[in-house]
């Protein structure tokens, strides 16, 4: 509890680090902050080209189908892989100054999250132009889904960031793991395409209900299935609890290991 209060006292640090990351990310480039929007737009253009022209798909407006799942997925996988390096990246600070170490994964994940929100602006615009329509009531559920995903990403980042300090290979191993994980999550395909007997495996994956919920809201214009969402929420809390536990156990040795 005392720790939580301390973290709250350091909210300005989290805020500055997030701001620094978002502003510093494209600093020095000509288009600057615009890249935050251009980047997802260009990605969308590539996917549209590939899946409408090169290898057409029987899912209607597949580029949109893919995009509403991919943006949240990229946030999640980025939190895992990039988050793994976030303590290593701030080595000098960790070695020389005190602050609650949780600040590092929290600000990293938060900055990824804010970046995802910017991408969602692009998604909204594209949805409006695509003529697929919107269900305003279903959209109200969107923040809940996002929060669930945020909790999950944070838990994951806490585990990976702390472990990477002791075991540097993890950063690279995670690159492969998240790639495999992406294909175990219905990001680029629909869950109906998966053989019946493999589905339990997919459903066990905590990211499956999250990605599905995004898609139900944005693509199918439906309310997300609450049972799945609740399950995802519980999983998210478990992941976060593990993350906090592991992180606390390992953080005492950070300064010596780095």
């Amino acid at each position: 509890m005392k720790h939580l209060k301390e973290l709250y006292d350091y909210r300005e640090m989290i805020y500055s680090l997030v701001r620094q990351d978002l502003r510093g990310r494209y600093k020095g480039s000509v288009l600057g902050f615009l890249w935050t929007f251009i980047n997802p737009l260009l990605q969308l253009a590539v996917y549209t080209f590939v899946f409408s022209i090169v290898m057409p798909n029987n899912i209607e407006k597949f580029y949109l189908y893919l995009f509403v799942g991919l943006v949240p997925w990229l946030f999640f996988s980025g939190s895992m892989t990039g988050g793994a390096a976030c303590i290593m990246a701030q080595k000098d600070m960790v070695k020389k100054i005190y602050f609650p170490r949780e600040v590092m994964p929290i600000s990293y994940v938060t900055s990824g999250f804010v970046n995802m929100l910017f991408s969602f602006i692009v998604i909204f615009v594209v949805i409006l132009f695509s003529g697929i329509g919107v269900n305003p009531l279903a959209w109200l559920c969107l923040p809940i889904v996002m929060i669930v995903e945020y909790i999950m990403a944070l838990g994951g980042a806490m585990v990976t960031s702390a472990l990477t300090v002791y075991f540097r290979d993890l950063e690279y191993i995670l690159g492969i793991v998240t790639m495999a994980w992406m294909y175990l999550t219905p990001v680029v395909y629909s869950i109906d395409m998966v053989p019946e007997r493999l589905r339990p495996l997919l459903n066990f994956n905590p990211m499956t209900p999250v990605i599905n919920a995004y898609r139900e809201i944005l693509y199918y214009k439906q309310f997300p299935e609450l049972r799945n969402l609740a399950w995802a929420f519980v999983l998210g809390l478990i992941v976060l609890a593990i993350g906090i536990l592991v992180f606390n156990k390992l953080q005492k040795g950070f300064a010596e290991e780095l």
Partner: protein
Amino acid sequence: MDKGNAIEVKDVKKKFRVYFDKGNQLKERLLFRSRNRYEDRWVLNGISFNVKKGEAVGLIGHNGCGKSTTLKLLTRIMYPTEGTIELSGRVSSLIELGAGFHPDMSGRENIYTNASIFGLTKKEIDERMDDIVEFSEMEQFLDNPVRTYSSGMYMRLAFSVAINVNADILLIDEILAVGDINFQAKCFNKLKEIKAQGTTIVIVSHSLGQIEQICDRTIWIDGGKIKADGKPRDVHPEYMDFMGQKRQVIAEKENARKEEKSGKKAGERGEDAESGESGEDKKRWGNGHARINKVRLLDEQGKSQSAFATGSPITIEMDYSVRQKVEDAVFGIGIFNQNGQQVYGTNTRIDQMDEFALEKDGTMSVHLDQVNLLPGIYLLDIAIESQVGVPVDYFREAYTFEMYSQIGDVGIVRLNHQWKI
């Protein structure tokens, strides 16, 4: 925890694991099991002390004694292997200045980031902004990116943030070397002001003078244990003595090494002398009719030393050998400081000693009653001449010795003095 205490350190031990060849990668960990050999090095072997609220404490000790580790444990960058550390209140550390500075951001933005690392909220930073800017004297550069700053400006800004945090406990590691003399003086005064406001301060420093000016108490750490704990006035002389002795041991080793080297050289030169030329060695010249073989500096007890306390007597002894009779010989000494400036020189002729000739090997000595040279390293030149001014053996930098002192007076020599009012 006692109410009146700001810091309580109880029986703290700290061990570091020193790997001979550490592997952080999977391959290394699995394949080279033997590489994971390590030894435990105990840096702190059980130290306990309390610091009262508002007290200022200096930590001293030679390099590697564990004082910086102690400070790191206090800041909670590291955690003790055994024992407990309790602190009450907000802690700010001047250990790493400018942590989190982003070169592309402006000075003002960096103030926010940097201050936030000390746990300040936006409101608190806004309140302190004027003080920080004023203290740093950087108003006109505040909106320029930090990468355009000179290193002095950078440190000034960083120091201004750290010192304006208004912490309850301030931890400082060798920090007062920031900026020019004026800014240093300003930092120093600010520290005194902070102390007067009741902030608890812990300083690690090699500058005993700084500690004396700020601290009420000095803790001397040696070999991971507290060796002395008390008023700076009592602890510092003890510490200086200890360090002086340590230096003496080192200086003697150094001289022994040099002697060994020059001994070899002399041998080589002997061969040279036979071939008739010895012009290469600029540190030593002369016709070689007599030669200085060994130089010793003796203390009061007649023990050979190479470090002396300012004000103590020194006897210089030089053994010489004679190849050919030297009529009307003159012995001279010259003492130079490290800048090459001669601080003293004399010879037997200047001192109007009776004429003498060198016929066989012997020892010449000169006794200096009170050597008032201030701390530093000094070089001794020795020379034998004949009365007509012909150098017989001029030996430059024949000996190196060191002076040490507990008094902080400055200059080249100490002039005996009394104050009166």
